[in-house]
């Protein structure tokens, strides 16, 4: 049955009409906030005064942020957390993916699913659960440590005391790193598993016939073939690590922790806007963070450049 003439979509306009929902949402929620934030980074603004209250201040916000002690402190925190949570993710995900790839046949999807589950779990659920896991007196993690300290041989490595994970400035960073690692290691396993499945089996067979052991095969065949995927995974980890917000926000109740030990740059710029009422400086900080992320991504790109491209 044909639709009435008014409702029919002509082929000339069909692509634009079908794309328009996405484009409209992207312009509204993607491009406009970006542009407004760039504009705001050069203004000083008290929002309760209305839009008219904006005053142009040039690069003042940027100068202020670059001379702010807490900004550099937050950058240190961010780099520490990005490294300590990011490097183990890849160091463990690669051998783990190799192990799953070579050992599991029927159970493979179930195992991978189990590792991937933390990535898709709701942040609120994680917040509630990990806050109680890390609890000083009643948390399971401290209970586990206490049990470990009572074991015969390795017990000496662990003191029996309860660790104040969430309030001690020296302990909140490892706690956050543990949470981030737990959350993203599965995601990286999936990436590497997908890449492993593209390596042809006959290379391994040829290597076995030439007398290479499993370790040598892993080092000389698997790793170089994984290089593009490692580059992709590391880039994602770099970007995600520098923008770390959710996990420290959850564990420190939105404040960044005692002595701002868990305050990443993303949390600081959020607090700058909503707790300390300085929207101009917060916008300037977000653009400085963008410049940093772009720089680190470019450096990662250079580090992973394939040998042919390098020799050019």
């Amino acid at each position, binding site marked *: 049955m044909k639709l009435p003439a008014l409702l029919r979509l002509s082929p000339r306009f069909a692509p634009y009409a079908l794309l328009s929902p996405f484009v409209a949402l992207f312009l509204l929620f993607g491009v406009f906030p970006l542009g407004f934030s760039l504009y705001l980074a050069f203004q000083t603004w*008290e929002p*309760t*005064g*209305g839009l008219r*209250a904006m005053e142009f201040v040039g690069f003042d916000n940027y100068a202020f942020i670059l001379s702010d002690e*807490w900004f550099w402190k937050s950058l240190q925190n961010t780099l520490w957390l990005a490294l300590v949570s990011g490097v183990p993710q890849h160091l463990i995900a690669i051998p783990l993916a190799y192990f799953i790839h070579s050992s599991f046949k029927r159970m493979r999807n179930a195992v991978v699913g189990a590792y991937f589950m933390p990535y898709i779990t709701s942040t609120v659920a994680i917040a509630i659960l990990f806050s109680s896991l890390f609890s000083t007196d009643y948390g399971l993690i401290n209970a586990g440590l206490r049990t470990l300290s009572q074991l015969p041989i390795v017990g000496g490595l662990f003191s029996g005391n309860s660790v104040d994970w969430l309030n001690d400035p020296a302990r909140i960073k490892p706690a956050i790193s543990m949470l981030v690692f737990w959350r993203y290691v599965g995601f990286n396993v999936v990436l590497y598993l997908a890449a492993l499945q593209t390596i042809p089996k006959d290379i391994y067979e040829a290597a076995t016939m030439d007398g290479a052991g499993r370790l040598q095969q892993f080092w000389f065949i698997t790793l170089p073939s994984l290089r593009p995927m490692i580059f992709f995974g590391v880039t994602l980890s770099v970007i995600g690590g520098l923008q770390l917000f959710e996990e420290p926000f959850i564990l420190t109740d939105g404040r960044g922790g*005692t002595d701002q030990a868990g305050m990443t740059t993303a949390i600081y710029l959020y607090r700058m806007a909503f*707790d300390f*009422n300085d929207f101009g400086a917060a916008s300037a900080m977000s653009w400085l963070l963008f410049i940093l992320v772009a720089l680190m991504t470019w450096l990662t790109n250079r580090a992973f450049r394939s040998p042919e491209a390098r020799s050019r």
Partner: protein
Amino acid sequence: MPSQAPSGYWIRTVRWCLTVAGIGLTLLSAQAQTVLTVAAYPAVDEIVRAAIPFWKKAHPGVDIKVVSRQLNDHHIAMTTALSTASYLPDVMALEVGYVGRFAQGGGLEDLSLSPYSIRQLQGRYVQYAFQQANSRKGAVVAAPTDIGPGTLLYRADILSRAGVSEAAMTRSWDSFVDVGAQIKARTGAYLIAHARDLKDILIRTGIQPGEGLYFDDQSRVLVRSPRFVRAFALARQLRLQKLDAKVIAWSSEWSEGFKRGTIATQLSGAWLAGHLHNWLAPNTEGLWRAAQLPEGAYASYGGTFFAIPRGTAAANKQLAWEFIQFMTLNRDMQLSAFKTQDAFPALVETHDDPFFDQEIAFLGGQKARILWREAARRATALAVHKQDAFAEEVINTELDKVLEGGKDIFIALGDAERLLTQRAKR
């Protein structure tokens, strides 16, 4: 034909429905009254809702719609509404912590100008509450509706077991700490919940006129003044003697501390007595007493204000002002809010009501409202500075370093001063 008759039928049905709906809407709008939107948070929303029937008697053509959100969400929503001047309520309730910031912003109607002329009514309000709503340029942006006079709530039974008197405890802050040591030694109970509470009240004593809490009116940083040094020193002494329970207010350990009697005193607003009675520690009925803060200190903890946004429709502003006067200057409304929601009235003429002379059962029959009335009269308003929230965070961080890490007090305050000077003029 089967394929055509149904469409004709449906078109006629749709047309009929639209006509009826249109007539109905017209009839409804003909009877529509003016609607005043009031944005509030618990328990102010309950107070407003309870006042609506009395308001309707005086203003039959005006309906009140209450938009209620949780405390933080409400203030974020008000900030957003003010920033774009859209979806503004006609009257907004503001908590004291936010009034200063909203006052500096300029988005609220100046009630000192005509036709409001609130300065003519200034004497009817508790003075410090009225001052809190003044902006630096002299505009009055809100009218106070309830206040939180500061008080010292303490467990009389723990004090008597330790053999100390209230007078000894409140004579001076040093004697307060000494009494705490005796309480700890003889009963094992902590004096206060957290050393930070002591620091908070001590930095509010001895403020010179023209000074705010952390900055003065020229945006000079004040954190190395004697009141900060004394606050840090006493807090450290308290911590060294293990007299505080190290629990944060409103946490589950804090309420457990009250239930089990491991926390002997709490410095807070008078409204805490109501909370203790209702849900914090109802099992301790009759064991608490109220006293004035030690060493003649008077402070305020909390308070609510009503304001009119500048961007509201002009037609509604006069009605909004009448509503605010109804809520804040009507004796019956203020007293009923006090009796039902424990909202201490900001209207001075209610303070001679016999309700103040009643015994409070939870406090063992003490007539504590007389004490609180006196505290309300003596408290002073603090000037607000844009960087106060950041300053509070910095000072708390430095205090943690002094208490936990043994940092030297003068170095800590010096570091704080350096951080704050950098952004004092923003």
